[in-house]
């Protein structure tokens, strides 16, 4: 397994785990107050920050445990990364459009922030899934 494939798995697991923890925290707090009144901002910022830090630290750890011969990136790694990026970017655009539409109808900030965050996560998850599938099944 190349370093590129290991990093794709890492991004996938970190994105799912961070968003899962965020959802548990926010939904758990909504038991006592309406969902839109939940103080979601700290959980959102902490989960994004933790995902970024975890991604960096795990990336460094993977670099240390991966044999040096597997560090090399070649044209196939770049092709796969580009295909994953294309899928991921589609969801970034979708997040922007969703935020725009929610702002136009003056939706609560809760929905705007969560629509954008969800699309960030989908971008990361589906981009990573695309990369892993392409590494495993070919293209």
């Amino acid at each position, binding site marked *: 397994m190349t370093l590129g494939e290991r990093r794709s798995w890492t991004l996938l697991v970190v994105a799912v785990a961070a968003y899962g923890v965020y959802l548990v925290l926010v939904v758990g707090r909504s038991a006592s107050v309406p969902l839109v009144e939940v103080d979601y901002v700290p959980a959102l910022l902490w989960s994004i920050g933790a995902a970024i830090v975890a991604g960096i630290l795990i990336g460094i750890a993977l670099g240390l445990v991966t044999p040096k*011969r597997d560090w090399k990136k070649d044209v196939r790694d770049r092709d796969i990364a580009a295909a994953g990026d294309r899928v991921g970017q589609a969801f970034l655009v979708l997040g922007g459009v969703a935020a725009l539409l929610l702002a136009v109808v003056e939706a609560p900030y809760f929905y705007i922030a969560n629509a954008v965050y969800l699309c960030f996560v989908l971008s990361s998850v589906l981009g990573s899934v695309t990369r892993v599938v392409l590494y495993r099944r070919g*293209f």
Partner: protein
Amino acid sequence: MVKATRVTNDIRALRAARGEMTQAELAERIGVTRQTVIAIEQSKYSPSLEVAFQIAHELGVPLDRVFQYPGGAS
């Protein structure tokens, strides 16, 4: 979404004919990873034209001896 290439190849047999050249040796000579050579051999990845020519060159045969496209274009 994902579809393996229709391009087939005889890299494995040609490596054997070249004194049991390993996948790692071929990868090193053409500047790709061993995983990429494996993917190409298993028809899971279509190499660029440049990489295809490099493989043929290292195996000492013409390009169409290494790669085939069964059934022609469709």
